[in-house]
């Protein structure tokens, strides 16, 4: 060996980052999400800006959608089909179900399409990909806040006072978002490869709406099947919402617990599947 190699090299500090091929199931590294938290905020903020700036009605949409649906539900399900509403005025009953449902449906749709909608960014810049579906749900939360105020107005009109159980609402909302995010992660990942997903989501969301006690109460489901209702996390969320806000129905703890477990399973599986597939996004999208 030459004399040059005999010189003792300076000790090298450990590398900040190693780029190497990854394969199989990688552990989740959610600390990256925390480091990039400002980006989550900015991307959500962008969607909110665009949602309210580019549309003619702006915030009006957040009000109009649940209101119009409530009217239709009230006429057809409430007045004509005479569906039970657990003794509550049907419009309040329906709107209480629709407001959290709308949050869920919006979050599901946006997160499923988020990767494809942001493909130009994904091809050119690296950041933890999970930020994209996560931030895409942000505008739904603003919509929810607006429609929630309308809901409170309805309750005041029908003179229904909320019980102290409203303190459970944030948890139920969180559950709705986690469910949407969990499924959204699966669908967003599949959407990168199979663009059919874009057309599947509205359809899926419609089916799901009718399978969830939004227009009807869970009480019309026979008692012995009701425990299975919890397998649909949104059933737990909607029933819990009515129970917490209007004091109606009989929400069993087991239904909420089942919903939470299903929702958590969706989230964790979605996170791992997303993590496994994300390194290929830029190549395929």
């Amino acid at each position, binding site marked *: 060996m030459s004399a040059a190699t005999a010189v003792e090299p*300076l000790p*090298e*500090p450990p*590398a*900040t*980052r*190693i*780029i*190497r*091929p*990854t394969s199989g199931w990688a552990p989740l590294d959610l600390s990256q999400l925390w480091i*990039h938290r*400002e*980006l989550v*905020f*900015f*991307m959500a*903020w*962008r969607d909110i*800006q*665009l949602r309210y*700036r*580019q549309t003619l009605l702006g915030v009006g949409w957040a009000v109009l959608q649940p209101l119009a649906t409530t009217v239709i539900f009230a006429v057809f399900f409430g007045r004509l089909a005479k569906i039970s509403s657990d003794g509550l005025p049907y419009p309040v009953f329906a709107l209480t179900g629709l407001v959290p449902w709308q949050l869920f449906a919006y979050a599901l749709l946006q997160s499923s399409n988020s990767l494809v909608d942001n493909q*130009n*960014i*994904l*091809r*050119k*810049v*690296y*950041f933890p990909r999970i930020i994209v579906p996560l931030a895409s749900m942000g505008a739904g939360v603003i919509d929810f806040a607006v429609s929630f105020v309308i809901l409170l107005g309805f309750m005041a009109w029908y003179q229904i006072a909320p019980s102290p159980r409203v303190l459970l609402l944030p948890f139920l909302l969180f559950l709705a978002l986690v469910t949407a995010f969990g499924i959204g992660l699966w669908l967003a990942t*599949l959407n*990168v*490869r*199979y*663009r*059919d*997903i874009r057309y599947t989501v509205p359809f899926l969301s419609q089916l799901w709406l009718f399978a969830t006690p939004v227009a009807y109460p869970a009480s019309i489901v026979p008692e012995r099947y009701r425990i299975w209702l919890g397998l649909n996390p949104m059933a737990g969320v909607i029933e819990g919402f009515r129970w917490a806000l209007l004091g109606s129905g009989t929400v069993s703890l087991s239904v909420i617990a089942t919903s939470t477990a299903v929702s958590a399973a969706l989230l964790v599986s979605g996170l791992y599947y997303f993590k496994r597939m994300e*390194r*290929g996004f*830029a*190549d*395929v*999208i």
Partner: protein
Amino acid sequence: MAQVALRVQNLGKQYRLGSGGPGYDTLADALLRLARLPSRWMGRGAPSTAPKTFWPLRSVSFEVSAGDVVGVVGRNGAGKSTLLKILSGVTDPTEGWAAVWGTMGALLEVGTGFHPELTGRENVFLNGAILGMKRAEVTSKFDEIVSFSGIERFIDTPAKHYSSGMYMRLAFAVAAHLETRILLVDEVLAVGDAEFQRKCLQKMEQVGTQGRAVLFVSHDMAAVTRLCSRAILLDQGRVVADGPAAGVVHQYLHGGSMHGAAVREWPRIEEAPGDRVARLRAVRVLDESGRPAPEIDIRRPVRIEVEFWNLDPTFRPAANVHLYNDQGQCLFVSCDFTSAVWKAGPRPHGIVRSVCHIPGNFLSEGLVSVLAAVSSFPRTTVHAMERDAVAFVVVDHSEGDGARGSFSGPIPGAVRPMLEWTLPDPEQGG
């Protein structure tokens, strides 16, 4: 020894062609494939066609130290963009690894995430966040970014009302303020007007002097030779040259070996270009101390030496050189019949050597290719001629003492002479 900032070891990326991606297929295709699986397991059904693979990048290794500005050059499809995509984390390598010391920023595009509906101000913050800048960082640099872009008046106007030039200016202004220890830059200088390009180049040069490592992909060879101390030449996904920028650029442009281009010799007279009057023996590009110079500092003089066999002195053959730039434009022609030796009478039979002296601060930067010929007059006859006999790269490393002064942008012109300027006293009516 400077501290290492980036080390790339045996990096490679494999893509599959044809079935199985890249590109998206429909769910129906996937379900069909799934349905065919059982028959495939039983060894029946259509034989599965093995997907063709190719490596846009393979076995790439190099190291970049803090303060280095390294150019990455190569033809389209050589793997330059793939390399940057892997290093920036956008895509994964298939093999090998890269280690990074310090923060890294990547500009694979300017204005990533810009949205036409958002105002300039909003886009600055959004784009900054996407590039990895903290909000506080963007806030503190905001005024600087806006003034760099030169569109102060329109900062609160939605970007959709911007001209494409304004759009790019603002986008680059954000990118130029990215302060990471390692910076990856891909072709971003291909945008904007000449004046703005100059500003961008200046900003990049500052980056290099701040102890940062820059990896710079470009097709602008003049920019690479000026900005980069070193360059890496990629060809079909592999590193084929890694060394001083001028030499690598030369090799890329000339397609030949790095050392041979400055000197061309025909030792055997029967193989030399020419006729019964004159035959070329050698053409050399030499620096002022007489060494072969594939690369020459723009401020230094350069000699082109033409050596030929003078076989019939009665013709009084004269050596001449034609210099071309890389656009094929002829810069000038010069002939030795202007010399006192030629005028004095026929040169003796045998080997004749003529040297053309090109002063410093005369040629423009870039590749110069030399056509050497031996001709006789007045009935013009070309006895020997060799196109692209030799070539060399003129590199502008001037620091205010060259024709460019302190200007750092691209300068047009076939030549770049440093001419005399006088400033006559206006009172004397000059």
